[in-house]
């Protein structure tokens, strides 16, 4: 396909600028997102040291009763995680008078703003969708998703003239830039459906309410915000009757939800959490959400009258409206929650490949501005090399350090885990960025890659030392979730070590006219082009 040269240049500029603005945020989103896909495994890995006793529905009932007895605010709205699905223990949560979410377990029915057991996965998740910035972070990530979409659009246009002939090309010759360009293109093109899906669903999950607020007066005559809860919730909105009625037992709700799903042809519906509105009122409503295996958009929910347990509404695979089907599908596609463990493994790999896409994009930017006969490269190239190394590789070091810190806090100071992990993550990340800012890029990259390899290799080590669940013991006992995390960390550590060795080789033997050449060679050689 032929495209005018001026058009190609314009799209190259668009691709460059969107990459420069959003690339770092997207690297963080993809690397942290690859880990978020394995959220349940990481939770179990983190909790290895504490006993594995899975609570029962009776424990959950006692927790719910205690929370409703102790906290008047919880009567308006309370949520409860069923035990043994995501976490071994039941967790209840509600908003206190100031609007702060409170979390309670059987050990602590009074509740606190700290979420139990999930400090590590919550931090990784927050980095994934908001860079860990409270408030504005989620909107920034939404804008990054939109820019990501623009980068994909422009990237496809630039690559279009050679897309077909270059699709399977990975030219590993003397021209290193060609190899990186091929790798960047092949990951971008073969992963394009997934990337388009992430750009779309990422923007949706971050900006849905912003889009809704903007479109409401333009195309819905101001009636959208009113209609939105009906499009997203299953339970019908009911005002309290101001008449007391004891809620039915939790076990009854649980059984009724499974029964309602079974009658609609959804076998194996597994309730994960419930939302209870107007607890103790005659108009109380309970909405039970769970997963049904074997459907795209496995999430479904059943709404019951809280007092009688009578069925009010269902949104389940095969029997739901377009709104719920579309949202469940978008959610499942974004989190790889539709094809079992094989799809999730694929999502972890595609997530890491996506992170590589943004990293390689920055390297290609530096390479395309390389001064071919100059040993001393321009300030922009050196600055970009330092920022890429510090932010991207530094983030990998920070995440692995946070995993190690998670085991350490779990063993010695579980009450401080949440703030401790945040501090460990951001302090290490900032230190890595500072280190990259003062070191020559070639050395900074090698050193931070070795730091990433060591920190990542320390992940299974810390897990084994704290909990005595070494990988071979986990495997022998069939605890595959922590085993997968340990083995995944070892694989990543060896990948970082291989990259560290490759960049050391490149600094020593590669073209000296580059930011990636060792500065000792630059000082040894005069800054004059060799005679041709």
């Amino acid at each position, binding site marked *: 396909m032929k495209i005018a040269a*001026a058009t190609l240049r314009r799209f190259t500029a668009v691709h460059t600028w969107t990459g420069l603005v959003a690339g770092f945020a997207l690297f963080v989103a993809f690397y942290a997102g690859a880990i978020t896909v394995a959220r349940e495994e990481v939770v179990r890995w983190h909790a290895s040291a504490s006993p594995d006793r899975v609570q029962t529905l009776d424990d959950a009932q006692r927790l719910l009763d205690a929370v409703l007895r102790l906290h008047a605010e919880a009567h308006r709205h309370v949520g409860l995680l069923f035990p043994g699905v995501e976490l071994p223990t039941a967790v209840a949560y509600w908003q206190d008078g100031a609007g702060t979410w409170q979390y309670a377990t059987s050990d602590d029915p009074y509740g606190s703003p700290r979420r139990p057991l999930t400090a590590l996965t919550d931090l990784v998740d927050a980095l994934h969708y908001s860079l860990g910035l409270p408030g504005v972070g989620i909107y920034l990530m939404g804008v990054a998703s939109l820019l990501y979409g623009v980068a994909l659009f422009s990237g496809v246009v630039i690559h279009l003239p050679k897309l077909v002939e270059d699709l399977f090309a990975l030219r590993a010759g003397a021209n290193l830039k060609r190899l990186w360009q091929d790798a960047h293109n092949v990951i971008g093109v073969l992963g394009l459906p997934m990337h388009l899906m992430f750009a779309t669903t990422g923007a949706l999950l971050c900006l849905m309410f912003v889009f809704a607020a903007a479109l409401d007066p333009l195309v819905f005559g101001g009636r959208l915000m009113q209609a939105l809860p009906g499009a997203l919730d299953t339970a019908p909105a009911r005002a309290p009757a101001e008449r007391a009625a004891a809620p039915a037992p939790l076990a009854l709700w649980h059984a009724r939800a499974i029964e309602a799903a079974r009658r609609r042809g959804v076998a194996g519906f597994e309730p994960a959490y419930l939302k209870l509105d107007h607890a103790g009122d005659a108009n109380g409503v309970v909405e039970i959400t769970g997963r049904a295996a074997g459907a795209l958009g496995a999430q479904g929910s059943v709404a019951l009258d809280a007092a009688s347990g009578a069925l009010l509404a269902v949104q389940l695979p095969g029997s739901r409206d377009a709104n719920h089907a579309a949202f469940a599908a978008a959610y499942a596609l974004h989190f790889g929650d539709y094809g079992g463990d094989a799809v999730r493994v694929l999502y972890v790999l595609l997530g890491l490949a996506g992170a590589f896409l943004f990293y390689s994009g920055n390297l290609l930017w530096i390479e395309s501005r390389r001064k071919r006969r100059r040993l001393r490269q321009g300030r922009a190239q050196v600055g970009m090399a330092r920022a890429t190394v510090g932010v991207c590789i530094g983030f990998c070091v920070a995440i692995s350090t946070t995993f190690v810190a998670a085991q350490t806090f779990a063993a010695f100071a579980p009450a401080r885990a949440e703030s401790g992990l945040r501090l460990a993550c951001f302090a290490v990340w900032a230190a890595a960025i500072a280190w990259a800012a003062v070191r020559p890029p070639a050395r900074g990259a090698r050193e931070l890659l070795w730091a990433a390899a060591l920190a990542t290799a320390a992940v299974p080590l810390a897990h084994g030392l704290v909990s005595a669940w070494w990988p071979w013991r986990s495997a022998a006992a069939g605890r595959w979730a922590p085993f997968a995390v340990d083995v995944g960390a070892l694989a990543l550590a060896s990948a970082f070590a291989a990259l560290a060795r490759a960049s050391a080789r490149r600094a020593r033997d590669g073209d000296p006219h580059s930011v990636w050449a060792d500065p000792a060679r630059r000082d040894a050689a005069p800054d004059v082009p060799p005679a041709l």
Partner: protein
Amino acid sequence: MNRADLCSRALAGALPGFFVAAAAVGLAVRLAPGSWQAAIVPGLIAFAPAWIAAFGSAFLFAEARRAWLVLGAAAALGFALLHVVVACGWAS
């Protein structure tokens, strides 16, 4: 190609492009079979790709001015259609 030209196109893609995407999503949702309330989430999902496509198209035109003209006209036409559709009672 210069920076002012690129910025002008980006603005055309961001502003009139936004209204083109809004009108397209609005028409699709209001003309969907059944009530428009039943197509809210598909509409919201479609909005981001629609806006991205409109934004990207601003860089396809030969001149920045033409990007403004075409996207502006498309937005005006889209909203005019939406009003006709609503006024004639064809929309849910």
